[in-house]
């Protein structure tokens, strides 16, 4: 149905090798998220899969068949763009029905599918509006609707939620997750939002400069980052990476400890001064300056009455400490 295999896929723009060579298997029905810093090649990789860009070398297989040379329309994939890319002059209904019209589907059947997609996405009462008359979330749903109707082998999403505001992002995120559960279609999803990656993915692919740093389930990446790059990239706020003396104590180049794994305790081994205290009610985030260690970010649950300038003691939960070698690789 929707298994996608990349074999030594390589893409250069002119001289620049944006993707030096990637092997990746996306299993049928999987929800795979690509994350990575801006410019690392996430979109390029997605567009290669979609067929919107030609590979420089390598093979892309869809369902075991070589699709490297197929045009986008023939690959049976659907894509949802960051800017939605709705057709502004068509009504919602026409937008959703466009792929069916292009496929030459008969009107009755198309009508049924459109109605079904609209129902799933709660768009039924907007079918006659133009995209310009819709809110951001509704537009995003139309874009998804347009992808759904074709019943594609896989969905490709390129930062589909980044133009939405926080609240909407949360609810759309859940809608997409539910959609995946309902359809069980392969989905490849590009984002740079931590929470989206962690909550939606079956499997996260961390990219850096066109290379895969690690592939794994969200909790795998959280608990066992393969290297400092992944360790720093996954988790919010970022893991504290500490080098120097503290790391030498345990005989490695760098140790890492997440903000939520540091307890505030007067008798903690690290004594420091609060630089910034952000009180969210549910949590308090502290930036603490610790002599000889550096600035540590600490998350304390609930309201902690600390302010700028207060002295605190910090205790890392030693079983949660990550250790990395000089090459940045994790040491088991």
């Amino acid at each position: 149905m929707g298994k996608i295999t990349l074999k030594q896929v390589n893409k250069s723009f002119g001289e620049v090798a944006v993707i030096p060579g990637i092997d990746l298997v996306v299993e049928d029905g999987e929800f795979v998220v690509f994350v990575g810093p801006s410019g690392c090649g996430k979109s390029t990789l997605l567009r290669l899969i979609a067929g919107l860009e030609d590979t420089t070398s390598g093979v892309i297989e869809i369902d075991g068949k070589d699709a490297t040379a197929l045009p986008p329309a023939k690959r049976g994939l659907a894509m949802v763009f960051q800017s939605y890319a709705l057709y502004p002059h068509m009504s919602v209904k026409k937008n959703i029905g466009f792929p069916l019209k292009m496929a030459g589907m008969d009107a009755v059947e198309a009508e049924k599918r459109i109605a079904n997609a609209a129902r799933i996405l709660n768009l039924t009462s907007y079918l006659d509006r133009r995209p310009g008359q819709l809110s951001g979330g509704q537009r995003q749903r139309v874009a998804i609707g347009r992808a759904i109707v074709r019943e594609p082998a896989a969905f490709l999403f390129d930062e589909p939620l980044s133009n939405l505001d926080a609240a909407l992002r949360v609810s759309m995120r859940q809608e997409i997750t539910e959609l995946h559960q309902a359809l069980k279609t392969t989905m490849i999803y590009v984002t740079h939002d931590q929470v989206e990656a962690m909550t939606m993915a079956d499997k996260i692919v961390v990219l850096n400069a066109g290379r895969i740093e690690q592939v794994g389930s969200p909790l795998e990446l959280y608990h066992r980052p393969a290297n400092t790059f992944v360790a720093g990239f996954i988790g919010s706020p970022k893991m504290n990476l500490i080098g120097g003396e503290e790391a030498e104590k345990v005989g490695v180049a760098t140790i890492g400890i997440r903000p939520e794994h540091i307890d505030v305790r007067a008798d903690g081994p690290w004594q420091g001064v609060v630089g910034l205290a952000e009180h969210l009610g549910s949590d308090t985030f502290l930036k603490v300056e610790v002599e000889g260690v550096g600035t540590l970010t600490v998350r304390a649950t609930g309201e902690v009455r600390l302010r700028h300038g207060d002295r605190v003691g910090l205790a890392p939960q030693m079983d949660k400490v990550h250790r990395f070698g000089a090459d940045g690789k994790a040491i088991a």
Partner: protein
Amino acid sequence: MSTHSSRIAARIMVAPSVALLLLWMVVPLVMTLYYSFRLYRLLSPDRTGWAGMRNYTWFFQSPDFWLAMGNTLALVGGVLVITVVLGTLIALLIDQPVWGQGVLRILVIAPFFVMPPVAASILENLFMHPQNGLFAAVSMALGYEPILYLQDYPMWSVIAIVSWEWLPFATLILLTALQSLSSEQIEAAEMDGASAFGRFRYIILPHMMRAITVVILIQTIFLLGIFGEIYTTTQGGPGSASTTLPYMIFKQAIVAKDIGRAAAGGIIAVILANIVAFFLMRGIGKHLDT
């Protein structure tokens, strides 16, 4: 930004344009209206007086009048169709990545820089002339009789000349419209399985509707008044085959020196222009809403 003071400022700032244009329109219009009811022939200053509706009835009774009306609309319509269709195709073509794009564009735009009388006389003499024109030479080289463009297809010849002049304008506006189309929309359509034609028909064309509207609107305004090209080439002939309303007026004003009739013709032309404008607005005005 709609504070009271800015609204007042806005009124003051449009005032000069409105006042000037009002003067520019009203003064000649009133004078023309006045003359249109006068007997006024430049060369017979001794014969003057009120003419009643005579100047108008002369037009309506003239055997050429309806032909001229038809030709006027044919000229406007023909040029519009040609420039919009060809303009769209050319815009699509030169929007593609090609080598030497800068030079290419200037070549395409060049006819727009040519003064209309020059354009007309160049095309007439160097190209369409049945003995010395390049087209004739081509015909003969291919073993055909030269085509008598101005004699056998006078209206088409005029339309072709005017189209050549206006094609760059249309192309330019349509090209820029094309460039403002987000590539993601095209890619989305591609993913949706649209063929090249499908993308053009359902995505590109609708996107360009507003630009097409602008082209139609602006060109119509200019085309409705065209007579110079006709004067230079066919002189409205043979017979009245290529006479348009402005050319008819031109003949009355310039050749016959009958100012009263020319004025009446001017008023008729204004009315025609407004009718055209009305349908234009009705038909395509909705694309101008932003």
